[in-house]
């Protein structure tokens, strides 16, 4: 009798402890309220952190207040012979050309699910250092479809994929932005600087996909 009582009590105790130990829902759904139910897939295609040699004011400046993104093409416009508003030496008509190009990253975004996705937003671009730590959020300028160069409207049909080109402000000095304090700083480390970019994609303001690119670098002036 005592043995049976002990067995029953033990079983009840074990059941109680098990029931209290974990309240995770194993039903297969994601219970994180900040993550959407859409399963978007993003794949990295190409990218660079831009070139701001002749237009430092256009680059991302972590110390500047109001560093707000503005719309516009990632690359300075093609030559316009009538243009006289170039930012160049006084009296000189530079024809609207600059030795500048904003940063860009191109991705393929796919919706492998059964439902059309709307309100897709390239929410944030975060530059990572060598340890994978997010060092800065880089202002996004525009997100365009690469097939027709129109602005991405945030819609992606079920089963569809779309290449997107995201223009953003790159850092004036990539090395300085990602370097740690105890790192050596020399010409080689400046010219070899490269860093991954973390791309956060949301649907209806909920996390849908995070893509970490390989290390990418500034756009070289020349690299044949």
């Amino acid at each position, binding site marked *: 009798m005592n043995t049976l009582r002990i067995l029953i009590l033990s079983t009840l105790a074990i059941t109680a402890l098990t029931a209290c130990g974990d309240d995770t829902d194993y039903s297969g759904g994601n219970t994180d309220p900040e993550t959407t139910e859409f399963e978007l897939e993003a*794949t*990295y*295609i*190409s*990218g*660079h952190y831009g070139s701001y*040699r*002749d237009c430092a004011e256009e680059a991302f400046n972590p110390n500047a207040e109001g560093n707000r993104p503005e719309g516009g*093409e*990632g*690359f*300075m*416009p*093609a*030559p316009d*012979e009538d243009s006289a508003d*170039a*930012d*160049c*030496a*006084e009296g*000189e008509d*530079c*024809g609207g*050309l*600059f*030795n*500048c*190009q904003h940063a*860009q990253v*191109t991705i*393929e975004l796919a919706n492998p699910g059964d439902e059309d996705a709307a309100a897709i937003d390239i929410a944030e671009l975060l530059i990572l250092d060598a340890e994978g730590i997010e060092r800065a959020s880089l202002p996004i300028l525009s997100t365009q479809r*690469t*097939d027709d*160069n129109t602005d991405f409207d945030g819609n992606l049909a079920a089963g569809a994929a779309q*290449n997107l*080109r995201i223009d953003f402000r790159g850092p004036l000095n990539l090395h300085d932005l990602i370097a740690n304090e105890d790192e050596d700083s*020399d*010409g*080689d480390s*400046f*010219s*070899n600087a*490269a860093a991954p970019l973390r791309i956060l994609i949301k649907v209806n303001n909920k996390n849908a996909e995070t893509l970490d690119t*390989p*290390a990418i*670098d500034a*756009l*070289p*002036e*020349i*690299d*044949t």
Partner: protein
Amino acid sequence: MKRLTWTYALALWITLSACQTQAPQEPQDQAQWMVDNAQRYLTDRAWRRQHLETSLWRPELPYARKRLDSYGLERGGWDKLQTIAPTVAPVRADGQPSDVHNDGQNLLPQQLPTTVEGWRALGKEVFWKMPMRRDAYMEWIAQRPELWDDVGLQTDKDGNIRGLTRFEDARGNQRVGLTCGICHGDNGVAGKAARQLDLGHARALFSQALGNTPGTFEDWGPGRVDVTSDSVDDPLTIKNLWGVPHQSHINTSGSIQLHSPAALAVRFETQFIVGHAMEARPNRALMWALAIYIVTLDRPQTEPQTDTPGADVFQTRCAGCHNPQRGYSGDLVNAEALTSSQQSARSPLRGTGFYKTPSLLGISSGGPYLHDGSQPTLGDLLDSGHPFGQPLPEDDKHTLLQFLQTL
């Protein structure tokens, strides 16, 4: 016994598979091999990737890493970039505007060639008209005829600026691009280095017009270009292209191994992508055609005088590196063994510690000489003690110079 048979069969299959990717050595044979493998290049991603990996024998270099991270991947990467429309228009020297849509020529034929001659003809069009890169400074120069002589631009027989072309970029903008011909087509001769071209001066003028300091651009000088954006100032001479199919490596520090002419096409493809800021890729058939054209370039109009005392001196003192059987080119040489500047061999982006041995075909067309153009004439080159610091006796130098002037 049965297991041994299967093992031998497997080994044989592996060997034969490897042999299928090995190209012949003679340029004309290389060209036929390329015609035979054109479809494979166009459709077989893994095959292209294999050639990329083999050619980038120093994968740790940033130059290699960028390409290995992005080209020929199973998923994503540069293969997914949109292709730039192969429609181009000339940049007229009289200042009359040209428009790609109204005046354009589609470089891509409706049907791809099936013969070496057909592919060569297509490659020739690509060489002179395909925008391999676009640069803001050159677009600015193209609008200013008063600067063209200063920077060494030439006009061709049709009244167009040689080496510049108008095209539509990935964003739908009409732009001016640089073709192979601007650097490697002096006076309309495909493969001949444009030693009068001063891209450094052009860049300096543009920087100054923007109110900026020209930096070290003016140090390049005519016929020289610093092709890397790194901490090392190492402008290199623009090269003749005639001996490329014989060379074991390309790029001054030999960072690309030419184990196969397919490696050349891959190199052109990635060169184009980087030259267009990683926003678009070229039509692959055009890059394959360009590679065939380079492999089969007409040799310079020279006649090496191999039955002379100078040729004997060459055979004794020079042929160990500059092999006459290989277009007077050779393998990599340890840079530290040479008297020439070590900078490029130590480039943080591409430096391998070696220099390629370039072909000497066409050297009689004029200097400067060595990878950095530090020797204005062949006489200066020999006086410097090239390659290892041991100048020749005067008699040998004299006869050798006579021979070199026939190459």
